[in-house]
């Protein structure tokens, strides 16, 4: 009886892998992404206790009863944000990024952490087993620049808004989070927009989709970071928009110098008042945060394009003794690559996206390779709810242009952004003791034919292509006939959301 059930189940769920449209496949592509029939039943439970067997049997029955639905998931079925999972991935190709690639290797996950990597590992009682045969496992992808999972992006009435915090406006219900998960992303750095020379504090999030509690997504212990923005966006919003400084790139530099000087005076005055009991200046979270930057407690992530202004900001920071910065977008970074390396700055680029406005007219697809070869810790960012779904393509394109090794290409979307965010001790590579944030592909993730099939955060499967539901929205508006859910926001630069609502 049980065998019959299993067979009919498999008959239903086995389907051919996608075949590229009408093309003859080259042999290396075939080797990389073999056409094969693969059971979509990746999960089994290796356990011989009668109770668990019967649970498994019942769940199979449930699957069959809802044939045609194949146990599709709903967002509200996903485990809570504080859940930490146990898993054994067996016999997969493991791309550790920091420690080579290992064929036919097992990963044991206990309580959300990678406990062991090796061969012939056995699953402790009750631990879910994922058959990794034919699958590639890479560290969960990290996007160092996103504006998703937010209910506001720009607090654009001041040129400096260091007091606002994206952690205050995390929206864990946005469908973009699930879509990013479906592209293998497990961690994002979600930033204030680029309307202001100094925006707000950013938030590093783990994509624990399924919770309504914003705090559930916050990456515990991640360092504080803050958004800076150079060039046309602040001069456009404030200079041209309201006819105030900064009207030019020079004005942006002066804003920084004055803000840092004022913050230094503010902190001195507060300390002095605390010492001698005099009346302190009014509390200002804006000044507090700026002073914390000067004290090295907040990492800067700066929206930037042109080499001259990138160089300018490094000089400003040097004058004020600040040494941790990552330049975001940094399309002319290749022109100042040795200077960035000398400063110790990070760089987070687009693989081949430019010419969308004048200051970013000039760039090159070799940008990231040049940065890496000059010793700059570089990453790739999305800045887009669409691009975030295929950052592995972006890494592959950089490899194609710049002749990077597999590990170099993968490091652009894993360990390097982790370093830039100060979380490389927790995520960014597959190592024992690190968080079990993993992206599983049905081929090599740098192959154009590979698709993410499962994404794991803290050992919890948060995306499973085989169980991907029709409607994965968490929050459903009872008043809306059809909700306006769009992948692209046409005519809208996500960096400038709310910036012109003046």
């Amino acid at each position, binding site marked *: 009886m049980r065998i019959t059930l299993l067979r009919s189940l498999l008959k239903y769920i086995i389907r051919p892998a996608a075949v590229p449209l009408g093309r003859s496949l080259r042999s290396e592509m075939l080797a990389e992404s073999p056409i094969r029939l693969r059971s979509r039943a990746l999960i089994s439970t290796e356990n011989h206790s009668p109770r668990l067997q019967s649970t498994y049997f019942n769940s199979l029955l449930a699957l069959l009863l*809802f044939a045609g639905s194949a146990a599709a998931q709903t967002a509200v079925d996903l485990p809570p944000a504080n859940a930490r999972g146990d898993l054994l991935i067996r016999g997969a190709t493991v791309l550790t990024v920091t420690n080579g690639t290992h064929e036919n290797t097992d990963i044991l996950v206990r309580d959300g952490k990678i406990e062991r990597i090796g061969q012939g590992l056995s699953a402790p009682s009750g631990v879910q087993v994922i058959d990794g045969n034919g699958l590639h496992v890479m560290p969960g992808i990290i996007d160092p620049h996103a504006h998703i999972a937010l209910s*506001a992006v720009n*607090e654009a009435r001041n040129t400096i808004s260091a007091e606002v915090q994206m952690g205050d406006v995390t929206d864990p219900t946005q469908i973009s989070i699930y879509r990013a998960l479906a592209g293998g992303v497990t961690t994002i750095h979600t930033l204030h927009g680029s309307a202001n020379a100094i925006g707000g504090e950013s938030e590093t999030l783990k994509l624990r989709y399924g919770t309504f509690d914003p705090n559930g997504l916050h990456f515990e212990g991640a360092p504080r970071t803050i958004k800076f923005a150079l060039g046309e966006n602040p001069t456009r919003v404030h200079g041209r928009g309201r006819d105030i400084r900064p009207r030019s790139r020079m004005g942006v530099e002066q804003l920084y110098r004055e803000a840092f000087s004022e913050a230094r005076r503010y902190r001195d005055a507060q300390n002095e008042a605390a010492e001698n009991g005099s009346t302190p200046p009014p509390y200002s979270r804006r000044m507090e945060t700026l002073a914390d930057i000067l004290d090295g407690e907040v990492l800067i992530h700066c929206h930037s394009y042109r080499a001259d202004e990138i160089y300018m900001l490094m000089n400003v920071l040097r004058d004020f003794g600040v040494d941790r910065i990552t330049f975001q977008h940094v399309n002319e970074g290749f022109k100042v690559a040795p200077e960035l390396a000398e400063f110790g700055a990070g760089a987070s680029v687009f693989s081949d996206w430019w010419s969308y406005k004048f200051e970013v007219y000039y760039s090159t697809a070799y940008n990231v390779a040049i940065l890496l070869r000059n010793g700059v810790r570089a990453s790739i960012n999305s800045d887009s709810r669409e691009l975030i779904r295929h950052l592995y393509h972006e890494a592959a394109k950089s490899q194609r242009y710049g002749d990077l090794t597999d590990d170099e290409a993968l490091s652009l979307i894993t360990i390097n952004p982790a370093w830039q965010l100060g979380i490389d001790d927790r995520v960014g590579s597959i190592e024992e003791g690190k968080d079990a944030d993993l992206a599983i592909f049905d081929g090599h993730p740098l192959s154009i034919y590979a698709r993410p099939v499962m994404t794991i955060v803290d050992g919890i499967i948060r995306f499973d292509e085989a169980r991907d539901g029709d409607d994965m929205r968490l929050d459903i508006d009872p008043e809306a006939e059809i909700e306006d859910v769009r992948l692209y926001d046409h005519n809208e630069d996500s960096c400038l959301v709310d910036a012109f609502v003046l």
Partner: protein
Amino acid sequence: MRLTTRLVAFLLFLFFAPLLHAQGITEGTPLRPVTRTFAITNARVVQAPGQVLERGTVVVRDGIIESVGANVLAPHDAEIIEGDSLTVYAGFIDAFSHVGVTQVEEDEEDIDDPGNPTNDRAGIMPQRDVRTMLDPSGGSIKDLRNIGFTVAHVVPEGRMLPGKGVAILLREPQRFEDAQGVVLTGSLSLYAQFERSEGVYPGTPMGIMAKMRDLFIEARRRRTSVNRYYSDPEGRARPAYDPVLVALQEALDANLPMYFRVENTNEAFRALNITEELELPMVLVGLPWSTPLTNRLADRRITAIAPLALPDTVAADTTALAIPVATPSPGASVSIQQRRARSHRDLENERAALRAQRAAAVGRYESNAATLQDAEIPFAFSTYEVKTGDIRENLRRMITAGLNADDALAALTTSPAELLGLGMLGTVEEGKMANLVLTDGDYFEEDTNVLLVFVEGVKYEIEEEEELEGADPDAVVDPAGTWAFSVATPDGEVEGTFTITGSGTSLTGTIRTDETRDLESVTLEGNVLNFSFTQPEMGSVRVSGVIDGDSFSGTATVGSLGSFSITATRRPN
């Protein structure tokens, strides 16, 4: 002032009408009643939720419940209300509302430096006291009272920090009484919400969060600085006086709870986070679906004020689904496994699946109160942004979705009384304020009518809304123009003119008898024109009538004096 003979007659009538009618027990009047003692005899008395006196008498004297019991005798001076077929409840309390509060025009002028607006322009007005903003003469108080509400906790309208709230009695001001005569308490609450002020800082919820931090941290620090300065000013600068910070300090000193109004779970978590961080006592107002937060609310022992507003029901079209939905009823959530559609191949199925999701979401909102009840989170109800006419129906939907009738009653009576610290309200017990609702059956049944409401011992008869003859909600008429009217009073006709201008939803007007007055809340529903105005001697007058070509006929309701028929004809242009 020159008065016509007829107007003098009308005013005389108005003055003497209470006396003329005082003997008539049917006309309860707050003016000079013969007796302020009532005995409701042989009624079913719901003394408190779950505590019912099946047959008893309630004696009310001078606004207080003098006695309640099975063997209580009606005093000789009491007006007897035979309660054989009646049920008596404690008067309901609206835990959060703008009823009777004047809407203040918000300042939305452009300013030179939108990053640094004044506190007023930014909507930061914790020093504002709702008591200075009351206008209890409008019709909304009467509408709420007609379904059993006797007291409301009211707050000012506004933006981020609109001001402080008090409890008021839901009655019109009596003759020669100031608007503040209805106030029952001092400040009970500090109102907060994530409502940005157009065009200035803070313009986003994150800006509002940051601003709240600055304000409350500085309010606490400033208190220390001020104390230090006044004990020893030498070598210290005098901390500047700032009305906003002083108001916040006073709120902190009084441990005034922050009534944080939110619209969704995201805002609710944000409100919980900021009040926890700033160590502010909080009441969560308006959350339509609480399931994801029940643990947080329970941990901090936060009271919730659930909205009486509900989304419209959605009929899930189950017939379009290939696999029928097993539990399509409101209040039950539907598993997606039962309605999986292959969208690109089957639009009908997809549409049905989306509708089923929507119906399930409506069901979640309907079961909000039941969720709070099951999680043992204390909760009360708010009439904020609900149509008064929907309230009883919405309560029934909540009960269908799992709310116990006793808990529903508690959320209307004892819970808000406790939350607001109004110990004299909420139950039908000796010594409590005589706020009572008399019905002809179970309040939560559809057929039950509210017949009488007592507000602090003053009796209000609830007339059934009379259907105006010829009223047609679908008719299209233009009310604009000047109309010559005539009101039939027992002492003769009173005449004058009223003028309606505008169209659609933006109607205004004036009325002229002895002098010209502005009309309030002019509305047109089909061919029914409604407006009201206030005359100092009479209080609020409500007019409602049907327009048929150039003629108008309906009723004019003058305070508690009763209704008179009114007719009017439109003057040719």
